[in-house]
């Protein structure tokens, strides 16, 4: 009996110990005369800060303010819990990198400092498509840092074999090219599994659709909107050129590894996925080309999902001014440009995109960034993307024969349930 109880209690103890709250601390000294002797702690995510950029920004910051910069690299795994806990403590990190789609959720918690004045002083020409994620309830809660978005990666050898000379400028041209590859070669024209959900999200941005709408004071599914259906139709046309499974996403199997076998004309992915292909098959390197996902008309690229990060200041930090100094340095044209050049990411100002020259993947991605978007920027959205994501279920349903309206109806309850989760 006792053993059983103790063991059972152990389960609970194990589970709850993680949830224990941080302690309320008492306030340390507030403010300081000058920044000398202070240390600013910055949390950046693994892979976000190239070495040269880090070295130069650190030097510039320490020279200008006299304070020390402590950069702590965080792993993506379990980051949300870690940030939540950190923000609840009395001594949080001063500056944090936060995923752009997660920013509204943190803004909503009151854990991030409001940055309206910073936006006024340095953010006048931040790209609007990037800045949207940093604004919640009309207030600025973070500064846009960088984004990355999807492009078409194609196999030049297969395209040449099919006799195609130029990369497509419109969606119609793209479909025609895929059709040509289908007819003239034995390659699969494009590899597109049924649940490449971020590509689909981009298509909905392209058709101007919203995935959710407000019903009274609650967010509900808007998948039944014909504009969503139109985006899904486009997806279905792309998918008809692929033999990829309709119920899997691009990671199972890794689409880059499928592409590496050299029997696939193209796939839609991130620029860095080329490295995965090359790792799987080094001979493919010389055949890989990139182009912007073409839209309905020439000169207007397809809508894309902008995955990226913002820099925010913890509301509980006692070094607000110093933290703002850091943002002003890290985000100025010199260092923001250097980040784009070194990291191959899209910078927060269109004027800095010249830094991407010499990086074909980033150059293909950049034109779409201005008209790109994200997932719905509401704190409730995070719950929707937990597996099994009902939007993915919707996609598979349409691809396996249901009409968009029917499919929308079949996942509506689940989507609404997730949107109404108490916060």
């Amino acid at each position, binding site marked *: 009996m006792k053993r059983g109880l103790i*063991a059972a209690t152990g389960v609970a103890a194990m589970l*709850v110990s993680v949830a224990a709250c941080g302690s309320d601390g008492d306030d340390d000294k507030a403010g300081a005369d000058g920044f000398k002797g202070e240390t600013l702690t910055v949390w950046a995510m693994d892979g976000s800060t190239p070495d040269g950029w880090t070295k130069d920004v650190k030097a510039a910051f320490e020279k200008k303010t006299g304070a020390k910069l402590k950069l702590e690299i965080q792993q993506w795994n379990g980051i949300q819990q870690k940030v939540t*806990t950190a923000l609840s403590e009395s001594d949080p990190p001063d500056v944090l990198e936060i995923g752009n789609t997660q920013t509204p959720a943190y803004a909503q918690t009151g854990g991030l400092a409001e940055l309206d004045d910073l936006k006024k002083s340095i953010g006048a020409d931040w790209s609007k498509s990037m800045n949207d994620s940093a604004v919640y309830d009309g207030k600025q809660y973070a500064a846009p840092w960088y984004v990355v978005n999807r492009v078409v990666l194609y196999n030049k050898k297969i395209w040449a074999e099919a006799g195609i000379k130029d990369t497509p400028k419109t969606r119609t041209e793209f479909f025609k090219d895929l059709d040509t590859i289908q007819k003239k070669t034995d390659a699969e024209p494009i590899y597109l599994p049924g649940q490449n959900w971020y590509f689909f999200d981009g298509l909905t941005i392209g058709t101007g659709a919203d995935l959710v709408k407000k019903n009274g004071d609650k967010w509900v599914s808007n998948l039944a909107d014909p504009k969503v259906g139109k985006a899904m139709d486009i997806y279905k046309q792309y998918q008809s050129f692929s033999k990829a499974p309709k119920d899997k996403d691009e990671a199972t199997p890794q689409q880059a590894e499928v592409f590496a076998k050299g029997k696939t004309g193209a796939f839609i992915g991130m620029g860095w996925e080329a490295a995965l292909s090359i790792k799987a098959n080094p001979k493919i390197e010389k055949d890989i080309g990139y182009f912007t996902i073409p839209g309905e008309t020439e000169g207007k690229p397809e809508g894309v999902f902008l995955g990226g990060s913002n820099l925010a200041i913890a509301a509980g930090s006692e070094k607000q001014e110093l933290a703002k100094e850091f943002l002003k340095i890290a985000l100025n044209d010199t260092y923001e440009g250097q980040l784009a050049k070194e990291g191959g990411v899209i910078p927060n100002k269109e004027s800095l995109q010249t830094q991407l020259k010499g990086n074909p993947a980033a150059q293909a991605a950049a034109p779409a960034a201005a008209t790109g978007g994200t997932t719905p920027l509401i704190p409730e959205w995070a719950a929707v993307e937990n597996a099994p994501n009902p939007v993915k279920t919707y996609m598979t349903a349409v691809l396996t024969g249901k009409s968009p309206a029917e499919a929308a109806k079949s996942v509506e309850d689940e989507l609404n349930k997730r949107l109404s989760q108490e916060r």
Partner: protein
Amino acid sequence: MAVATERQDPGPAAAGVRRGGAPPGPRRRGPGAHGRARLIGAAPYLLLLPALAVTAVLLGWPLIKNGLLSFQNLNMRQLIQHLTEWNGVDNYRETLTSEDFWRVTLRSVIFTAANVVLIMVLGTLVGLLLARLGSKMRLLLSVGLVLSWAMPPIAATTVFQWLFATRFGVVNWVLDALGWHSMAHYNWTGGQFSTFFVITLLIVWQSIPFVAINLYAATTTIPGELYEAAALDGAGTWKSFASVTFPFLKPFLLATTFLEVIWVFKAFTQVFAINEGGPERLTETLPVYAFVEGVGNQHYGMGAAISLLTIVVLLALTSYYLRIVLRQEEDEL
């Protein structure tokens, strides 16, 4: 009312105290001896004190805290701003009316049953083998068992992940070499059943030593004469197992099964580390479900409620054994 009764009639209450108190013997001795006897009487409790204190701090307090959390709406915002929002039994109501919870509960029960049956059958067989082996082979097998028992769960899980890796795993390589070429790049964590297969293999492998060594220890308590007597009566191998070995092992089997049910049911490390409850949350057992809902989705109050319900389910599962133990204790009284 009750107080008044006591005042009027102290007789039965006093008798009650005497009946339940220390044995009457020492009471008749002198005052000094009386004190020492009291000390001796208290000794077992004093010795228990450190263990009880540690249990209270490390298990009792978190359990109480967990209980309190389960009646709160505690999410990111409340945690960051240190808000306490009581919401009554909302968490419990929502959990108990959700289809997911019951599906996961059923899955956990089936998972536990399958694992415990495998562990008990294979563990018992290995235990009996130990009893029959010569001393050198027995030592070899014992060392092997102890080593796998001593392997930390995360290390074991990592090794299993490598063994079953899709592209470079030795399991796929062996299957391919043996002629199953379709298994060359098989994704073991891609499906519900194959993921559970790997988890089950890992858990069974880790638990067999405990059962085997326990059972082997139990067989050493069986007097050899009984087997001789059985042989004289013409009992074959099976018969002597059924009428001599098994009756001796029964209490051990019962106790070990009980412990294994608890161990498998609460196995979190292995299930979570292999595939984090995936694909598509299809291999979440109750402890993993509580963790994903509570910590993963940052609904800490909800997670607390689920974890407490998990304990209730575990108590229900082990109620058969608990009843036997309680009845035995009553008999002893």
